[in-house]
């Protein structure tokens, strides 16, 4: 019975691992193919089944017009993701601390309603915002610019930062604040000197979530830009036409996706320390 369970357990783990890794291995294999290699049907092992070539990888950095030049979109993606994440994290952490520690009241609007307003933004389908965003950015002259995208991404990421940080601050004992206040700190001093230095775990989780959602967004990057500004996912999907160059497509997909795989290691580290259980709820 015990051996049977172990057998089933490792078979299941192996099966799922195969399913998880399969697309990456396929992309890796395809990225070294040429047109002939792709047209020969599904093949997997270089040299044995097809003649490998570096063409798919070379076109990524070629800038003479015949290549894809993925470096520009890559840098734009980094700038937009990190700027929007940083701004969202700063505004979100401040707001979350306020919502967790003080009571606000405007008419019938209470603290809990404001918290809900922040978090409920996740329900909003991007398409609902797309049309007014499009018109708003056009009005501001920010369509097809990095600044416009950062503005849009703040709307996307701020609710995530508030959501994670409110929960984090709710688990920090209020006595810590009270002690600091007794020592004569103003709320702002309390926050900056006492709370913030001890909030690194929450800030890291919130930051990672912002980076994941920012980096992986396609919809706004796609609808709010045309030619001048291009983010990475848009550049990759642009290759997805009827005569798709599978080799460069696979290579560019792998290059875009790999940075965040490193994030998976960070997330697991927090999982085993038990910080995440509170933060994700």
């Amino acid at each position, binding site marked *: 019975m015990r051996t049977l369970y172990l057998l089933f*357990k490792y078979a*299941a*783990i192996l099966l799922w*691992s195969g*399913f*998880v890794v*399969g*697309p990456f291995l*396929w*992309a890796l294999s395809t990225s070294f193919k040429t047109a002939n290699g*792709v*047209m020969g*049907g*599904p093949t997997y092992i270089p040299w044995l089944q097809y003649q490998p070539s570096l063409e798919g990888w070379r076109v990524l950095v070629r800038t003479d017009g015949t290549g894809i030049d993925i470096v520009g979109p890559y840098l734009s993606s980094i700038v937009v993701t990190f700027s929007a994440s940083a701004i969202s994290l700063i505004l979100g952490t*401040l*707001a979350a601390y306020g919502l967790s520690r*003080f009571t*606000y009241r405007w008419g019938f609007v209470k603290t809990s309603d404001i918290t809900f307003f*922040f978090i409920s*933004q*996740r*329900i*909003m*389908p*991007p*398409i*609902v915002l*797309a*049309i*007014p965003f*499009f*018109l708003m950015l056009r009005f501001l002259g920010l369509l097809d610019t990095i600044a416009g995208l950062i503005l*849009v991404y*703040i*709307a996307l990421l*701020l609710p995530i930062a*508030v959501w994670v940080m409110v929960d984090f601050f709710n688990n920090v004992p209020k006595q810590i604040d009270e002690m600091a206040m007794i020592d004569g700190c103003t*709320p702002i001093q309390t926050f900056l000197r006492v709370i913030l230095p001890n909030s690194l775990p929450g800030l890291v989780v919130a930051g990672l979530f912002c980076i*994941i959602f920012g980096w992986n967004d396609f*919809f706004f990057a796609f609808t709010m830009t045309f030619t001048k500004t291009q983010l*990475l*996912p848009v550049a*990759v*999907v642009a290759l*997805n036409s009827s005569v798709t160059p599978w080799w460069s*497509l696979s290579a560019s*997909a792998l290059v875009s*996706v790999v940075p965040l*795989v490193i994030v*998976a*290691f960070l*997330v*697991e580290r927090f*999982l*085993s320390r*038990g910080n*995440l*259980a509170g933060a*994700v*709820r």
Partner: protein
Amino acid sequence: MTRQKYLFLLPGLLVLLAIILFPLLFTIRVSFSSWDVAQPGLDWAGGRNYALMMQDGRFWQSLLRLGFIAVAAVILQYVIGFGLALLVWRDVVLKRFIRVLFLIPMMTTPVIMSVIWRTIFHESLGPANDLVRLLGFAPMPWLSTGGMAVVSVIIVEVWQWTPFMFLLLLAGLLSLPREPFLAAAIDGAGPLRSFMNVTFPMMAPISIAALVIRLIESSKIMETVYVMTSGGPGTATETSSYYIYIRGLREFQIGYAASLSLTYLIIMIVCLTVIAKLLVRFMIPRG
């Protein structure tokens, strides 16, 4: 001193209000106009867009289709994610390596992985049919018939987001107290009974949270569809977001798309609230 509390909240709140609330109010106004390519501007068309919408079978079908795809995908994600979390919860060789491996798909850009999946599902050149043949079945029309295209989209959604369920449920399992399990073991409960009577009820709150979060995110499905099938064949995989996208940002029927998107938003809020309430009712034991 009490004034300072506003310094925390207001910057974030005002930014969010400016970026989201005003555009939303503007959308409500636009939905009562006939703004399109021929007539770009705010006029007053009354409820004409909403009347048109009631007759728009393609829109209502897209909502039903979205509901089916989202619910099917989320249930599969939950069952598989819970199963995987239970498998690697306690001792397992290479524990940390396996956990990281299982998390990877949710870190990858959905739209980019969908592009890769499209090559995988290619009928003659992709590995999906190669595998099917290896198992002794006939090759399948993955993306070219309606039914299979829906299945393909669900497979990709399950690949992408089961890790999220896994992450939340594993975090939940790791934070459970030990005593109830000891008590169940002393009472002589087998693994199945201790799961049904101890693990599952204790995991109910986090299960509900995970299911609701995933349903919310799934209600926006569109990128997978856009890349893999463009809503096709025909309209077989067209979700509401994608249909509104076609109307609004391709055909530029801004007014009509605004009315569709507001209706879509309201229906999603109502459905998700009802589902959340029902989940709480049935998964949390009373008393």
